């Protein structure tokens, strides 16, 4: 690609609409990953599994009957497909969470990673329902009858960022609530949190299911963008990209996931657009992951907590707080909310 072509790509509205849509989708997923992993301490390497369940559920239930050789294609409307995707990912998150959340840290990480791969294998082998390795190359999109081509893509960009804003508002609300404080207390010192009455098991499961339901709502956006549901799409690469963005942006910071995704995907695109002669094309391709690794190393060298930090998100006061303080604040908030006990006394603790 010549330099001129690279400039041309950067000046193409289609390119930006597509890229910004993808950034919006990844940003939503990464913000949700931040809730469970950054604040809840649940290192989830199976986020792509939930995305796959949501995507397949949406695609299957919205497929018009007879379009694919599958046993179930009810042809539901788009809104029903979104609800079905949210419901299904919520149920699966609950069923997976029940056994998986008994494990901690790396054990939980391995279980969730395995879950995502198991689901991919199910998608391959339940061909009667999922169309096997071929998948679905037609995905119902909203507003198709109202807008044409580029206008539709622009509308879907707005919808995607509307959803991302909703997810941001949700995470912001969580971060400021007793629920968010309880999550962080549980992450920092589980015995202390337990001793203060936080029902850790329930809190972990609640969070896992909440994230599952929300991922179910994001999955159709991904399908609208990609227009292709296939087991190959839901490889671990998606999870790794979300995690890389999270680390880059700042684990447990509120806006960090969005910034991390934007920086990572924009940087990836810029590396891709670097002009190289054809004979160096293979070298260029091989240098991609190296360049991204280098970016990560540089950011972590000079900003160990990521571009935005948790301390910055939660202010100076939080910097001085110990984990126990956070746990106590969470309990106080909880007591106040439930109206049980003496909130003033709890604050005094």
């Amino acid at each position, binding site marked *: *690609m010549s330099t001129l072509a690279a400039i041309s790509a950067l000046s193409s*509205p289609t390119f930006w609409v597509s890229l910004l849509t993808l950034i919006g989708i990844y940003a939503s997923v990464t913000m949700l990953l931040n809730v469970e992993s950054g604040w809840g301490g649940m290192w989830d390497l199976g986020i792509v599994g939930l995305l796959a369940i949501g995507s397949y559920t949406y695609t299957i239930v919205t497929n018009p009957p007879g379009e694919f050789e599958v046993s179930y294609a009810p042809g539901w409307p788009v809104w029903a497909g979104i609800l079905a995707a949210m419901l299904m990912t919520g149920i699966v998150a609950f069923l997976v969470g029940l056994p998986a959340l008994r494990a901690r840290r790396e054990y939980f990480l391995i279980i969730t990673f395995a879950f995502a791969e198991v689901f991919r294998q199910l998608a*391959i082998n339940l061909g009667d329902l999922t169309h096997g*390795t*071929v998948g679905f*190359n037609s995905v119902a999109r909203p507003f198709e009858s109202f807008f044409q081509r580029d206008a539709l893509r622009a509308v879907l960009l707005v919808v995607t960022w509307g959803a991302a804003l909703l997810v941001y508002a949700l995470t912001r609300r969580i971060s400021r609530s007793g629920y968010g404080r309880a999550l962080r207390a549980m992450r920092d010192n589980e015995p202390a949190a337990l001793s203060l009455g936080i029902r850790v098991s329930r809190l972990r499961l609640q969070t896992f299911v909440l994230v599952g339901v929300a991922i179910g709502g994001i999955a159709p956006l991904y399908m609208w963008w*990609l227009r292709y549901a296939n087991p*190959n799409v839901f490889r671990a690469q998606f999870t790794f990209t979300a995690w890389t963005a999270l680390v880059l942006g700042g684990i447990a910071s509120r806006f960090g996931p969005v910034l991390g995704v934007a920086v990572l995907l924009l940087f990836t695109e810029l590396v*891709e657009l670097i002009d190289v002669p*054809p004979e160096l094309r293979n070298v260029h391709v091989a240098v991609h992951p190296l360049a991204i690794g280098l970016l990560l190393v540089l950011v972590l060298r000079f900003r160990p907590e990521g571009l935005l930090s948790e301390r910055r998100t939660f202010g100076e006061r939080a910097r001085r707080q110990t984990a126990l303080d956070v746990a106590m604040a969470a309990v106080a908030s909880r007591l106040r909310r439930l109206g049980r006990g003496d909130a003033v006394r709890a604050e005094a603790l």
Partner: protein
Amino acid sequence: MRRIFLSLLAIVVLGGVVLSCGDDDEGPVKLGFLAGLSGDYSEWGPPSQDGAEAAIGVINESGGILGRDAELVVQDNLSTPEGAVTGYNRIREEIHALGGVESDGAVALLGTVAEDEMPTMCPACGTTVLDTEGGNYIWRITASDTTYGIISAQLARDLGFTRVAMLVQQTEGTESPANVFKDVWENKIGGEIIADVRFAPGSDSYQAEVEQAFAGNPEAVYIGAGPQAGIPILREYIARGYDAQILVSPDLQVPDIAEAAAELPTGRILAAQVTDDFESPAYSAFAAAHQEYANKPPPTGFYETNQFDQYIILALAMTAAESTDGPDVAAQIYSITNAPGTKVYTYADGVAALERGEQIDYDGPSGTIELNTSTGNLVSPKVAVQHIVSGGYTAREVIELDASLGR
């Protein structure tokens, strides 16, 4: 930070809108090449690109397209559907037609290129999805997985086998021909499948799968896999001293596999693969162009001739249409590839015939290019049996598809 980020984004997008409002009728005609230069298809990427570059060289040497230079716009799709969508959107505004696409990318872009009215060529797509869904803005100039599956079953039948086992990797590109093979073998030929072993790629060893596939002493084993799984499977087969005939899927027809199986007797591993038309005058012209623009003689088995042909067809269609607009170009594709018309084998001859006002029928180094006007698929792809000789695949005989086995 947020404000700065959003401001920068707004500047870039607005700048983009302004910059993109250029005149489309000037400057080079840009032809996209969207292929897997990294990832699973990377083994095919560079030779495919060489074929494409040779075509662009030939087109420019012959005066370009409508008096304008042709330019290849190369994009890596990372061998993933997501990479194909991102890569396509990166170049969509600047290109006049698209080529190089493989199965995953083609299926992911099927609806999008039709919406965008972007003429798109599939020189290396086997996917069965395109058996019925191409024809308007997407054309396939290679054999379908359906053809490979049927031909493999036909080959097993002609060799006199009745009991066959299958060892198949669970990916779209490998399962598609395997499923057709199984269907034809059991339902059309009446043969027996004594074991159908499916496996997920990515393991270091496939001992258990090989054991299962060969346990019932099959006369032949159909192996459908990518090179990464194929090499350990073949090593296991050699180490265990099995002697069953091996039939392999198209993905295993690469030099690494041929080298891994070099010690086996000639003919032990058979493959059905599209073959170039080496006798055609188009092939000698292609070989010379490849030598000139890629600085090496063309390899075989990497779809390099198909990559070459796609751009010649697109350029001739633009010449015939006297336009680079998608709908105009798309409307001319069948008139370029299908009879009747003056048979032409090179771009220069095609342009000359078009300028004389003749209708043309282009056949390239990849063989006879006659497209089904409903589906955009090759009517009769040329497929040959390939043997491994001295660590490399060699085409032996062209096989005619038995029409009674068609689905």
